C-alpha cells in the first residue's frame, strides 16, 4: 500500500551525522555480527548439559558461568541473540504494519469503516491476552511462531489507536484536501501524505515495543508460551534463572545485560529516527 518509500520521504536527509544514530547502529550491528558469528565464537554447545558443573561461577573456562543444568551461559547468550533479534523484528513488524494500516483506514475514512475497526479494537483490547495465549498453545501448540502470532493478534491495537488519533487531525488539514482535489487515489493519499506525517509517535512507540516483546515471552512462560526449551532466549533465561539468582547471579545478569544493551540499541535507533523524521519538515 506504500508506493513511495515512505521512510525516504519521512527522513530524507542524512547530511549531518548523528551521534545517537551512530551508537544505535553500532550496537545493533554489533549484535547482528555476534548473532551471525555465534557458532564460531561460542566456546560450547549452547545446549550441552553438564550435571557435574551446575551453577559454577564465571571463570576462565566459562566466562559467564554455567546455569542450573550446567550449560555455558556465555554460549547461550550468544546463541540467544539470534532468537531475540528475530523476535524483536518479527514481534514488532506485523503488529506495526497491521495496526498502522487499520489506524490509517479507520481514521481517514471514518464512518462505517471506523466503527467496524473500533469495535474490533474494543474486542481485542478487552480480550484477555492469557485466554488467547492459552487457546493458541492448546490448539496450535506452544512455540515462538505461535507466540508471535499471539503478539500480533493483540499488539496491533496500540498502533491502530495511536495512528488513528494522528490521522483524525491530519485528515482535516488543507494539504490532504488539496491532495484529494488533485485526484490522488486514497491509497496514494494515505501512503504518501497522511502516513509520513502521522508516523512520528508510532516509531517512538514501536521501539519501546520491541523491547517489551523481547521480554514478553518470559512472562508467559508459565502458560508454556515463548521459546521452548532448550532453545536459548534471553527472556526465558532470566525467568528460569530467577529461582537460582540467590547463589548464581550470573544466570540472570548476563542475559539481562544483553537484553538491555539490545534494547538500548533499538531505543537509540528510535530516537534517531524520530530526530531525522522531524528534520523532514525543516531541512
Amino acid at each position: 500500500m506504500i508506493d513511495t518509500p515512505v521512510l525516504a520521504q519521512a527522513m530524507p536527509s542524512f547530511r549531518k551525522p548523528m551521534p545517537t544514530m551512530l551508537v544505535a547502529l553500532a550496537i545493533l550491528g554489533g549484535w547482528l555480527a555476534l548473532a551471525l558469528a555465534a557458532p564460531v565464537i561460542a566456546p560450547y554447545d549452547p545446549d550441552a548439559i553438564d550435571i557435574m558443573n551446575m551453577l559454577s561461577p564465571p571463570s576462565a573456562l566459562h566466562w559467564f558461568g554455567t546455569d542450573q543444568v550446567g550449560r555455558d551461559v556465555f554460549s547461550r547468550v550468544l546463541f540467544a541473540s539470534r532468537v531475540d533479534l528475530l523476535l524483536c523484528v518479527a514481534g514488532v513488524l506485523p503488529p506495526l504494519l497491521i495496526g498502522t494500516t487499520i489506524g490509517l483506514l479507520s481514521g481517514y475514512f471514518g464512518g462505517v469503516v471506523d466503527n467496524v475497526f473500533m469495535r474490533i479494537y474494543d474486542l481485542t483490547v478487552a480480550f484477555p491476552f492469557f485466554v488467547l495465549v492459552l487457546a493458541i498453545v492448546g490448539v496450535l501448540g506452544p512455540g515462538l511462531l505461535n507466540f508471535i502470532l499471539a503478539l500480533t493478534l493483540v499488539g496491533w491495537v496500540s498502533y491502530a489507536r495511536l495512528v488513528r488519533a494522528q490521522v483524525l487531525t491530519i485528515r482535516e488539514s488543507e494539504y490532504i484536501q488539496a491532495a484529494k482535489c488533485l485526484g490522488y487515489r486514497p491509497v496514494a493519499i494515505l501512503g504518501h501524505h497522511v502516513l509520513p506525517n502521522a508516523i512520528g509517535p508510532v516509531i517512538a512507540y514501536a521501539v519501546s515495543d520491541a523491547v517489551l516483546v523481547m521480554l514478553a515471552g518470559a512472562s508467559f512462560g508459565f502458560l508454556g508460551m515463548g521459546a521452548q526449551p532448550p532453545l536459548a532466549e534471553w527472556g526465558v533465561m532470566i525467568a528460569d534463572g530467577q529461582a537460582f539468582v540467590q547463589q548464581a547471579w550470573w544466570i540472570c545478569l548476563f542475559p539481562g545485560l544483553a537484553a538491555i544493551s539490545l534494547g538500548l540499541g533499538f531505543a537509540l535507533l528510535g530516537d534517531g529516527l524520530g530526530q531525522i523524521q522531524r528534520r523532514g519538515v525543516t531541512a
Partner: protein
Amino acid sequence: RVVSPFQTTTLDPMRSAAAGNIETYGQLYSRLLRRDAETGALEPGLAEKWDISPDGKTYTFHLRDAQFSDGSPITAADVAFSLERIRTDKKSAYPAPLGAVEAVSAADAKTVVVTLKSAFAPFLGNAEIWNMGIVSKADVDKRGEEAFASVPVTSGPYEVKQWKPNEKLVLEPNPHYWRKGYPKSDATVELIEIASPETRIAMLKAGEIDVVRAVPWAQVDDLKTVETVDMRLEPSTTIYMTLLNHKREPFSNLKARQAAGMAIDNKAMAKAITRGYAEPANTTLPGSVDFHDKDYPGISYEPAKAKELLAESGMAGREVKILATADALSQQMALLIQAQWQAIGLKPSIVNVDGGAWWDATGKGDYDAAANWWYNETPDPDLAVRWAVCGTCGSNSYNTFYENPKVDALVEQGTREADPAKRAEIYKEIQRITTEEVAQIPLYYAPNAVAYSRRLQGLRLTPSLQWTLEETSIGQ
C-alpha cells in the same frame, strides 16, 4: 500466617484431593483417629476407643463427648453420614481409602459400626486420612453445598473466620474443640496463597508471614543463613519420578524403558537439583512408606549399556515428547532428562504446558514422558501402590497405563494380609517387579522444605501434609 503455592478451592473435605485443600481440612475437621505429631503413631481421635472383630471385618468405634464448632454434639449419625458421603457420593473426590468398606452405621448415639467386605489391614490408617473429616449432618442437610462454600460448621481445632477464595483463608480457634487446651495459641491463622516462590521467600524475609511451604531447593542454603528463619527439611512420603507412557512407542517397549532408566543418573540428579537434600530413589514407591525396600539396588546408571539396549529394542532415534510445566524445578528436571536421553540415542523434545493441559495430556496418554512427583497420605503403602503401579485401581498407574496382572493381584493380597512380615514380602515383590519393568523411573525422595519463622514453636508439616497448628505456640 502460612503461605503456600497451593489454592484452597473448597472447604468440603470429601470434594477435593488437591494439595491446597488437604492442608486445610486437617485444621477444620477431626477424624476418628489422629496421628501423634511427634511419633506419627495412630492415636484416638473422635473415637475414644475401638474394637476390631476377630475376622478383621467389623470395626466398632466408641465416640467421645465432642462438639461441633456451633456447640452441637458430634454423634454417631454425623460420623456415619460423613463416611458414607465419602464412600458413595458421586462427587467424592477420593473414595479409594474406603474402598473395602461395605457399610457404615450408627449403633447408638455414641457408637459407629463399620463393616468391611473383607479384612483390610490399612483400614485404621486410612480412617485418619485428611478427607475422612467428620462434618455436621445437620448443617449439611440444612444448608447443603452452600455450607462449605460459605462458612462450614467444623469439628477440628479451627473454624473459618473469613474465606477469600484465591487469596486467603482466615481461621480462628474453635472454642468447642474436643482436645481441651488446644489450639495452644489463640492466634488466628491465615493460609495465604502465593504462586511465585520468590515472592513467598521475600515475604518471609520481610517478616510479613511466618511459614513458607515448598521452598525452592536453590533457596534452602540461603534461608539457612537467615537468623529469624528456621529452615527445616522435614520427612515426607514424596517421591520424584519420571512417568513413562506405556501405551505407545517407544516406552511400550520394555527394553526401551530399561534403557531410558539406565540412561539416567539419578544420584547426580538428586544432588544437582536438591543440592543433596534428597535421597536418590531406588524403587517405584516413596522411601518413607512402610515396607519400603531399602536394600533394593534400584536401576543402575549405565549409559553405555543403555545405548546398547535401546539399539536392541529398535527404538533408537525415536522422538520422545517430554511434558513439562513452567516452574523452575520441572524445567530443570526435563532438561536433564532430555540431555541424558539424547546421549543414548533418543530424540527427546520438551513441550511446555500449564497444569490443566498437563493433566489433560497425561490422562489421554498423549505424551511419552513427564517428570513429576507424588506423595502418600499414610505410612501404609496400600494407597501408594494403588496409585502408582496398579492397572485396575482406577489410576491407570498414574496415567502411565502400566498394567501387570501379577502386580494387581499382589496389591489386593497386600490389603488382606494382617501379618506385617508377610505384607512386607508382598510389597517388596511389588517394588521389585515394577522397578525391574520400569513402570516409572524413580528419581529421588525429597523431604518437605519448609521455612518457619523462629517465633513459632511446635509447628511442623507432617509427612501426610498436615500442619500441627494446634500444637503451635507463638514466642516473641
